């Protein structure tokens, strides 16, 4: 998708002002007005970085369309500098976030679920428009996204007990292994599942104490931006979650090769880019979390048994082993 400034079509956006249906009717300029038709106030979709909503420093945007091709909105087309700013911001947030108590991190994640619950209708409307889902399917995706935050929130103060060990070494030493966050995680969110896929990949990285830079679905980025608006009013400290929108082919290589990113989630990386992305990622020995063999964009994110798992938290954790002598 590229800029098409010469033929910018009218944008059909979802709107909460049009009543109870999830998919609003198109509001095109010059449409015949009923009695006193209200002109809806449209939202500008921006980035979410460091708790703020910047536009791209580049001033670029691209058109987001529904699956049937109808233009929905202009989304920010992030630049290399936006990526770097987001990574720097995330790095700055790692110490504070990973230093919080596990219970506190759990409560912060749970709070995200609380706030999303209050915006179910808005998310459902946006997902329906973005993904071409029926209202029921869109609502199911939203509900599952909220429940996923809750599921991962509960893991915050348990994952160490599942992944940690006390090791019975054959000498007089006390020896234990505990998980610690990797640091800054770059996440290329799944392309088709705009919210549920995004939350399913983001929550496990965040609950472990990492700060993340997320590249939202390229074709369906709007629900991710709205999630940023939820996060901004949540208790997630600024900089812990940063959400960028833009073009995969332009931005993924930048994240993959950035030397201050510790781990990379490649679930949303197009298959033909995988080799190049993993080649770039090894330059600073990034941990790469990739979908298992045979898994593609048709992955069923509603399937709790497969789409939420403690190993996904573990893939963004390091195991630290500590030795100390036992003696008088």
């Amino acid at each position, binding site marked *: 998708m590229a800029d098409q400034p010469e033929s910018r079509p009218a944008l059909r956006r979802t709107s909460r002002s049009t009543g109870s249906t999830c998919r609003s009717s198109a509001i095109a300029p010059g449409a015949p007005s009923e009695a006193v038709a209200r002109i809806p106030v449209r939202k500008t979709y921006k980035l979410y970085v460091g708790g703020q909503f910047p536009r791209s420093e580049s001033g670029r945007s691209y058109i987001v369309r529904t699956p049937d091709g109808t233009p929905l909105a202009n989304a920010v087309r992030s630049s290399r500098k936006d990526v770097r700013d987001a990574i720097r911001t995330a790095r700055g947030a790692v110490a504070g976030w990973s230093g919080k108590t596990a219970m506190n991190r759990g409560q912060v994640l749970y709070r995200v679920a609380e706030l999303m619950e209050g915006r179910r209708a808005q998310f459902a409307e946006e997902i329906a428009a973005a993904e071409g889902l029926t209202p029921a399917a869109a609502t199911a995706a939203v509900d599952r996204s909220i429940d996923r935050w809750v599921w991962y929130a509960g893991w915050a103060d348990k994952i160490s007990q599942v992944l940690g*060990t006390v*090791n*019975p*070494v*054959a*000498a007089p*030493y006390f*020896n234990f*292994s505990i998980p*610690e966050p*990797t640091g800054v995680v770059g996440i290329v969110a799944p392309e088709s599942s705009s919210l549920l896929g995004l939350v399913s990949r983001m929550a496990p990285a965040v609950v472990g104490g990492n700060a993340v830079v997320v590249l939202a679905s390229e074709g369906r980025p709007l629900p991710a931006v709205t999630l940023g608006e939820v996060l901004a009013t949540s208790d997630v400290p600024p900089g812990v979650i940063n959400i960028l929108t833009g073009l995969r082919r332009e931005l993924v290589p930048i994240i993959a090769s950035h030397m201050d990113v*510790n781990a990379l989630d490649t679930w949303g990386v197009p298959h033909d880019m*995988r*080799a*190049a*992305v*993993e*080649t770039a*990622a*090894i*330059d*600073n*020995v990034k*941990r790469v979390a990739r979908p*298992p*063999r045979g898994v593609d964009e048709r992955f069923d994110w509603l399937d709790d048994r497969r789409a939420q798992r403690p*190993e996904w938290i573990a893939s963004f954790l*390091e*195991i*630290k*082993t*500590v*030795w*100390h*002598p036992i003696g008088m």
Partner: protein
Amino acid sequence: MATKRSADAPRALIRPKSEDVGRGTPAPSSWALGDGQQVPWEYAPAPEARDIVQLKSRYGLFIGGKEVAPRSGQWFTTVDPATEEPLAEIARATVEDVDQAVSVARRAFKREWSTLPGSERAKYLFRIARILQERSREFAVLESLDGGKPIKESRDVDVPLAAAHFWYYAGWADKLEYAFPNRDPKPLGVAAQIIPWNFPLLMLAWKIAPALAAGNTVVLKPASSTPLSALFFADVCRQADLPPGVVNIITGPGEIGLALVKHPDVDKVAFTGSTSVGKEIGRAVAGTDKALTLELGGKAANIVFDDAPMDQAIEGVVNGIFFNQGEVCCAGSRLFVQESIAEPFIERLKDRLSTLRVGDPLDKNTDVGAINNAAQLAKIEELVEAGIEEGGEIYQPACELPARGWFFRPTLFTNVAQSSRIAQEEIFGPVLAVLTFRTPAEAIEKANNTAYGLSAGVWTEKGSRILDMVSKLRAGVVWANTFNRFDPTSPFGGYKESGFGREGGLHGLLAYLDLDGGH
């Protein structure tokens, strides 16, 4: 004894001159015996008999349970680094040999090993552990002969730990579902494993034991300068009646290792070695479905606070950097001493260095043996020279070095900058860079100022400070009031550019399993 040797330092880097030989061990200055005095005793030689190792003149590849000649018809020589004498000729594998080894491993995986009940796999591994124990003296001597490490280290560390690894993982083979509850753990298939020359047998055990316990078959390539213990291990597999093809060993240069890693029928790649080669391997598997674990280089910080138990800290620092001639990925190559005790600590450290016995690896009194290979010695010399050029102040005890073989004196640098090459690059030799700090925060800042993150050490009597330091050091293994301890139950592996994945313990199994049962 002179403590400042900058003036004649370069002399210390090259092979010992004739006047160095036969001077005996100079007394530490703290003994106040006066300059030029010798320690008031001499050690009698205590050589370990080497005739327990029966070497053939040639060793082929170990494929499908048989020793086979390389298709290249070419052989290379492995030498004793302490004498530079050849030990044996080793097969130089070709790409076709790699093909053959992988397909044999695949067949053994499908037909035999993956279908064998875990309880039966366990018994083979227990057998291997027992045979290694039974043949421990032979393996210890062999390891010192081929690798140059002191016999007391191969005898007390390498070989017992290698046997212990097989013992530990043997017990997991039929208990995988307890290791990962609610999952369906299944082996990955054929594992390609490449190991370094610093702990040839131990690294083999770290790789093969968990792989086999999890139900994988392996093709392992030992380092070209230390292939013998792996080839002797082939004989252990035969003695254990391990089904042919479950373990295959190929030998050859790095390009053969790369061919193995790139082989399309390999499911898992495990590598231990330098960070630069690790990255090369990462690039070779990029875009494939192969699972990858890397255990790479390190530049460990050993941090000594002013309340540390001094004698233990000195021993720990010495063990941290001079164990195995410093050819250890987790070696404590950067010493951070709190400023208030820096002067006396460094003095005592120098004294301790002067009593280290450098020489014949097979002598039971030897503390520091031979450098593994000529290229490594050249690299150590290059970095030490860079350390001097960058303003570091070098100290080396004037110990006697054997006239032949690849040896390097225990070396210590003070006045080292954070940015100096000897403080940043992995030397992989008996060279310690000493730096200082004032506050714990400064120690953390400096210790973490490296691309590596394999290990670290903390020395203090204050428990709460240990735990705080432990949580802030970005390293996979932290030794508190100890250093360079290893155990099969204890996960080992790095943060950052020291690699990913863990070896040892329950976590070590994860590298060789698919928890979704292959679907």
